[in-house]
């Protein structure tokens, strides 16, 4: 009996640890990066202004006007402030194409997807969508124009 128990113990000891099976799915390992991580080149003033104009008016800016705007932006040291004034001027011009607020509030998710695509040339993540949706829903003063304004002022919009 004693020997049988020893034999069984040895048997369990050698059979208890099995080598782990390795599965190979033939998929390369990748680092997970933010969706906007590939944007590493800063836009020039000309690129920024012409893209901004196209986004807001959906038509190209003339070459003359682009040069003029570059000059006035260069003439102010705080670029964030300069762009803010420029965007405020654009918003005051006829021809700005912005969705009506009712449409935005009727389907905020669709508005956000369109806005991210228009300004950032990408889809929003679920987290971004959730935050922005909650923000818009929580504040009745937030209009589509103000959302556009914040996107135009953002750092991501300065890069491509």
């Amino acid at each position, binding site marked *: 009996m004693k020997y049988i128990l020893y034999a069984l113990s040895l048997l369990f000891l050698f059979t208890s640890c099995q080598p782990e099976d390795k599965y190979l799915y033939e998929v390369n390992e990748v680092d997970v990066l933010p969706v906007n991580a590939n944007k590493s080149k800063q836009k020039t003033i000309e690129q920024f202004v012409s893209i901004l104009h196209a986004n807001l008016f959906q038509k190209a800016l003339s070459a003359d006007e682009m040069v003029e705007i570059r000059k006035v932006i260069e003439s102010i*040291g*705080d670029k964030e402030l300069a762009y803010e004034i420029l965007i405020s001027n654009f918003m005051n011009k006829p021809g700005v194409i912005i969705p009506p607020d009712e449409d935005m509030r009727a389907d905020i998710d669709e508005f956000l997807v369109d806005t991210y695509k228009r300004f950032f040339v990408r889809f929003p993540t679920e987290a971004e969508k959730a935050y922005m949706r909650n923000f818009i829903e929580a504040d009745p003063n937030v209009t589509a124009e103000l959302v556009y304004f914040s996107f135009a002022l953002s750092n991501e919009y300065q890069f491509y």
Partner: protein
Amino acid sequence: MKRRKFIKTTAAAAAATIGMPYILPTGRLFARTNSRLAEHVVFVLFAGGVRQQEAVGMQYLDGSQNERIPGNIMYNMLTGAPPTDKIVYGTDANLAGEIPIPKILNTTLQEQGTLFKEMRATQIGHYGGLNVALQGNTLYSQGLKQKPLNPTIFEYLRRHGGIPASKVWFVGNGIGNSVPLLNHSLHEDYGRLYAANFIAPSVTFSSIGFKHLANAKVYHPEHELDPVYKMKYFLDNNFKNAAQTIGGIGNTFEEKQDIKKFIEATFEKTANNIQIRPPVSGGGDLETIGYACEVLEWFKPTFLTVNLNNVDGCHSNFTGYLRALHRADHGVGFLWDFIQKDPVLKDNTIMIVMPECGRNLNPNPILDHNDWYGYDHSDANARRIFGMMVGPNVPSNSVIGSETNPKGHSVDIALTVADILGLKDTVANVGLVAGNSRSLFDRI
């Protein structure tokens, strides 16, 4: 128990006292190293390349065109009799420039302050010269079309003096020659967040400025701009790329609104042609000085630099150079008079004036309409410059240095400004100003 509480409270207070300087957003670590000599400093970059012979030399045509007609055409700044013949530098009447512009100051700045009659410019190019003055460093590796490599005096003041962005201004003569790049360096410990507010009024308030900036939509700061900034903050948090050349320069929300109001008000004044300007104006440097006065009036800056450049026409037009030099003197006289009429700035502002470089001893072959030769800036004579200080704690009627005994360098300005505002040792101890630079007060 009480004793334990006492020790705990004392330890917390001591830790806070020690830790506090390191967490100040201004980067200020220590108290000022010397007392302030004035609460405001105005630095006139009397730039464009001023030939010593026509400036403190008071030689007029005698030192340049083989015409025996000496005289002082900078009689707001310098003490000396004006030329008596061949007057071309004034305003036009029957003959171009024949009426000298009347003096603005009853007492010259030379008599009111200290004249450094013979200084040396470290660089004899415009951008290099401006960089030397603002960085306090010779920095021969500094490239054109490149932001300053070492911190500028703007950044030193903002970081170590805790001076708000809207109290530090750089008013440029334009946007050419890389001038807009000078409001901050690319130095990793300083940079954009410690920059000066730059403005080039000749562009901002020009016709294209009116076209693209003057018709800004007004947003409610609380109900509209606040959510805009909150959304922007969220978007920026989701984007980790950044660069020294984007974004704000550290103006607070309130400062930004104030600057926007200033720009709006100045557009309105310009539209009605009632902006501040010297009695004789007509564009260029004098308009720039007028707008610098607008900035002084609105913001009462701790430090303002205004850059001139019209005298650089001397390359091809000596007559135009004389006119520009005479007008630059008129502008500086007007600026000092304006400061003395402002209740906040009066008696509490030190003004420094210095060209960034001089001009050559010998002319180039280009003749103007008076058959006078032009002058470039490339030889040893172009290193000859002057400097001037006026205001509280500046010795009056004092002349320092001579042609054979130069005193002071263009590299001294940064430390001089720091000295006036109580930060001389702090700035020097950073170790990025030239080893031979001194405060001009230490040269007296």
